[in-house]
């Protein structure tokens, strides 16, 4: 690896100054002359036929812009993968909070009251709310069987393994929905001009997703749709597909009224109406040898997609590919299924199916350890994937990854062996009493996992992302990408890469605003792909600039920033502009079969071992994470502070997923859609999250970087639940585990009566 001058250094975040001074402009900080406010009238029932819409007499409705499905100039759908989700319900509704009608008015306070004055009469129909109900097909609400998508991964001969197995271990594991809970709610402004078409500014991850959706909805050609990302206050997947919906709504109102329209959700609307992590159920049946080696197994992974297909097929895909964890399976059959229920569609959330299937895998691994009689560390060590072996999709591990070594280091960093022994002793003989008097029991839990970087299989080939780099007359460089910044550090890391490739100071490089009129489609900002896939293209395009200038003879191989400036100026004076583009090309010899789900699922994987130390207070039954070690191999760390920040933030969300964040459903509607009753971790709830990196594999990405964004979401929940089981000896197969859930499980285990009053 050649020496780098900016890669690996924690340079200041590009847009950081604006963020710490309050100057950064988010969507709700913007307004346009003559702007109206828009709002959405939504379904109050989970399923039924719309019989009548009536408008209360207390308002003069001529003051309002009113849009229904009849006003849609194009196709009434949110174009994404399939086109099954309507932009506005037409005749029937399939989930609570489904948009039916739009209103706009100049006074947002009046608007709020007007929403309540629109009365909708329904003929309700029976609805279904769980995976089990959906599978029973008592009501068919989607297609012929409520199934959005199925996948099958088959390797070896699973049916032959049971006969010779020394142990067969079965288990079923479930995970709940989780709200992304970005602190900035969804919002957009749309304006319409007959000549220019639609322009949308918004809080969003994927400008070209919105672009595609608006073309179909508004029946406009590509050049008459412009999408611009405003500063975006967190996303985590929650602003991957939903912005197409809210942008569609604002655009319809803007087209009808001829005035700009802003729609910004309040917290309740954002939480109850927009997407969440898919609830899941995973069934494992595993055959093991006497020594605890996996001989083979069956994994059935099922997710609840909500009322429309949206992204469920892709979430399912990532879920099943990660379902086998970082282990070697000589024989395996993995079935994936995404089913429909009458809830708002579930969508993208950091990890994208992998946190669900890996929770199951890593809980199951502890179960296997118990049955076989090995320690949680040893059972994992005996089954880790090694270089040269193949994954469940028969992808050969080519990088020099040593998971055993990673595990050793994580155990050492967390003081695992000593603590585990000490806690076991204390839990049995004399647990310390907590503040309310009941005993506190402690435990240690491990999770080992992997996360694939970039789009799955042939995904990157289909995307064929394009990146531009522009040299300006003043010697500065602009990166042209649709890849967006929403906290992860896109702006900073891509500028580091370009500066490194051009041998320029970091300050010379800037990133253009993600505006579909200005930047090429570098793909969506999802799937842990930006640093690795887009970063590689930025590097190529930057090298292209360098080659253009050296080829023209205006620059030598080694140059100062001043010489670079002079060369740019000369080139632009002669040719008008200096731009270089790079398009993704799939590496030679990469095999992926979309039909059989076999081959190179990802260009590379990040690897990790997380260790949680947990204390459970048997007065309150609350579990608290007291120490957390997050050790990972993510290739070259481009920016240590950003990378650590990504990991710590993901771990915090994972702790929330495990212990705090429970979506309470009633008839398909979230009942706790506020920050007062949906609880995410505060600074007082979290342990020190100790983040460590190991740089082992350096095969992929610009300067050897792999994807990092989603990885830290995968490990915390299983590590924590494994630790709770270690502390209490009670089996837990689900997340989230709030105190009442732990209490119930412990009661069922016949232990509560001994501890609840502390007397016996």
């Amino acid at each position: 690896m050649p020496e780098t001058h900016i890669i690996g250094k924690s340079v200041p975040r590009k847009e950081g100054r604006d963020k710490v001074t309050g100057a950064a402009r988010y969507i709700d900080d913007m307004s346009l002359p003559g702007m109206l406010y828009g709002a959405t009238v939504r379904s109050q029932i989970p399923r039924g036929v719309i019989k009548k819409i009536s408008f209360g007499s207390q308002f003069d409705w001529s003051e309002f812009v009113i849009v229904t499905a009849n006003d849609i100039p194009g196709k009434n759908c949110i174009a994404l993968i399939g086109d099954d989700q309507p932009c506005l319900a037409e005749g029937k509704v399939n989930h609570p909070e489904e948009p039916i009608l739009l209103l706009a008015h100049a006074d947002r306070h009046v608007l709020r009251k007007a929403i309540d004055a629109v009365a909708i009469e329904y003929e309700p129909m029976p609805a279904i709310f769980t995976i089990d109900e959906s599978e029973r097909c008592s009501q068919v609400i989607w297609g012929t069987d409520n199934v959005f998508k199925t996948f099958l991964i088959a390797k070896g001969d699973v049916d032959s393994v049971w006969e010779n197995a020394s142990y067969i271990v079965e288990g079923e594991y479930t995970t709940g929905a989780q709200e992304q809970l970005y602190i900035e709610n969804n919002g957009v402004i749309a304006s319409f001009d007959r000549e220019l078409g639609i322009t949308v500014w918004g809080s969003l991850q994927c400008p070209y997703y919105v672009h595609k959706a608006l073309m179909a909805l508004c029946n406009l050609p590509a050049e008459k749709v412009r999408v611009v990302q405003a500063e975006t206050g967190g996303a985590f997947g929650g602003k991957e597909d939903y912005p197409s919906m809210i942008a569609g709504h604002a655009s319809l109102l803007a087209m009808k009224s001829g005035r700009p329209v802003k729609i910004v959700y309040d917290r309740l609307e954002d939480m109850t109406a927009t997407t969440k992590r898919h609830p899941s159920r995973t069934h494992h049946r595993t055959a093991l040898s006497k020594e605890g080696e996996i001989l083979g197994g069956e994994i059935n992974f099922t997710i609840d997609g909500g009322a429309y297909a949206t992204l469920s097929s892709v979430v399912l895909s990532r879920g099943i590919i990660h379902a086998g964890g970082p282990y070697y399976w000589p024989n395996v059959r993995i079935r994936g299924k995404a089913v429909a229920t009458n809830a708002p569609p579930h969508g993208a959330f950091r990890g994208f199916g992998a946190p669900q299937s890996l929770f199951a895998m890593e809980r199951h691994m502890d179960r296997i350890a118990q049955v076989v009689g090995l320690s949680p560390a040893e059972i994992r060590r005996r089954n880790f994937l090694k270089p040269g072996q193949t994954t469940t999709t028969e992808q050969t591990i080519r990088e020099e990854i040593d998971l055993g070594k990673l595990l050793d280091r994580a155990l050492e960093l967390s003081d695992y062996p000593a603590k585990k022994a000490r806690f076991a002793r204390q839990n049995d003989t004399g647990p310390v009493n907590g503040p309310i008097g009941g005993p506190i029991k402690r435990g240690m839990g491990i999770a080992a996992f992997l996360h694939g970087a970039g789009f799955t299989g042939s995904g990157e080939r289909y995307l064929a992302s394009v990146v531009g780099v522009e040299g300006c007359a003043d010697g500065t460089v602009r990166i042209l990408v649709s890849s967006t910044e929403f906290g992860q550090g896109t702006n900073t890391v891509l500028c580091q890469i370009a500066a490194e490739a051009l041998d320029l100071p970091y300050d010379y490089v800037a990133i253009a605003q993600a505006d579909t009129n200005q930047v090429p489609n570098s793909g969506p900002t999802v799937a842990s792909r930006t640093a690795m896939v887009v970063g590689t293209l930025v590097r190529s395009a930057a090298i292209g600039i360098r080659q253009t200038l050296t080829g023209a003879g205006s620059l030598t191989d080694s140059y100062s920033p001043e010489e670079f400036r002079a060369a740019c100026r000369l080139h632009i004076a002669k040719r008008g502009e200096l731009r270089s583009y790079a398009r993704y090309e799939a590496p030679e010899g990469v095999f992926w079969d979309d039909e059989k789900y076999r081959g190179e699922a990802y260009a590379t994987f990040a690897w990790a071992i997380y260790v949680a130390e947990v204390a459970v207070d048997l007065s309150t039954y609350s579990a608290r994470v007291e120490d957390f070690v997050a050790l990972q191999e993510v290739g070259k760390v481009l920016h240590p502070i950003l990378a650590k920040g990504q990991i710590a933030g993901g771990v915090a969300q994972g702790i929330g997923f495990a212990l705090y964040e429970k979506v309470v459903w009633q008839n398909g509607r979230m009942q706790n859609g506020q920050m007062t009753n949906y609880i995410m971790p505060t600074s007082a709830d979290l342990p020190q999250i100790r983040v460590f990196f190991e740089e082992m594999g350096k095969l992929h990405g610009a300067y050897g970087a792999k994807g990092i964004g989603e990885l830290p979401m995968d490990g915390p929940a299983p590590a924590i639940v494994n630790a709770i089981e270690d502390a209490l000896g009670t089996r837990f197969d689900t997340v989230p585990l709030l105190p009442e859930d732990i209490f119930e499980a412990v009661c069922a285990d016949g232990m509560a009566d001994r501890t609840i009053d502390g007397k016996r």
Partner: protein
Amino acid sequence: MTNTSENRVKCELALTVNGKTETVRVYPMERLLDVLRQELGLTGTKEGCGEGECGSCAVLMSGKLINSCLVPVLQAAGANLTTIEGLAQGPQLSALQAAFLECGGAQCGICTPGMILASCHLLDKKPKPTLDDIREGLSGNLCRCTGYMQIFDAVMEAARRSPA
């Protein structure tokens, strides 16, 4: 949510924000948050939840940390208000702003103004806080990106650099 259209009578109030006194014509029960953002154009103060839970709208009111989504503007008349826009001296960032920038305390940035003002409030009370003081002092401000660790680093760093 305070509904301003109910009270159709506006009044004139003098608000002192970041050392400058301005007169605004507003409904007395309007949220301070809305007046700061819409009447005074101080959009650095953010709305996250509208119910006092997330702290994104936190500002200092005569030295106290308040959630401006819960305070009717009438109550702020006569007080000294500090918003995020009032911390830097021209191009010179305050010690906390600089430390947030350097230590990774801001990711998406939406909680950052409130978080920095909560940190200001904490350091006013405890110039050399312990880690537990910081955890406690910032527990009314939610951040979904950072997991708080680099925010703690930033506050520690700012405290280390301040004379006291």
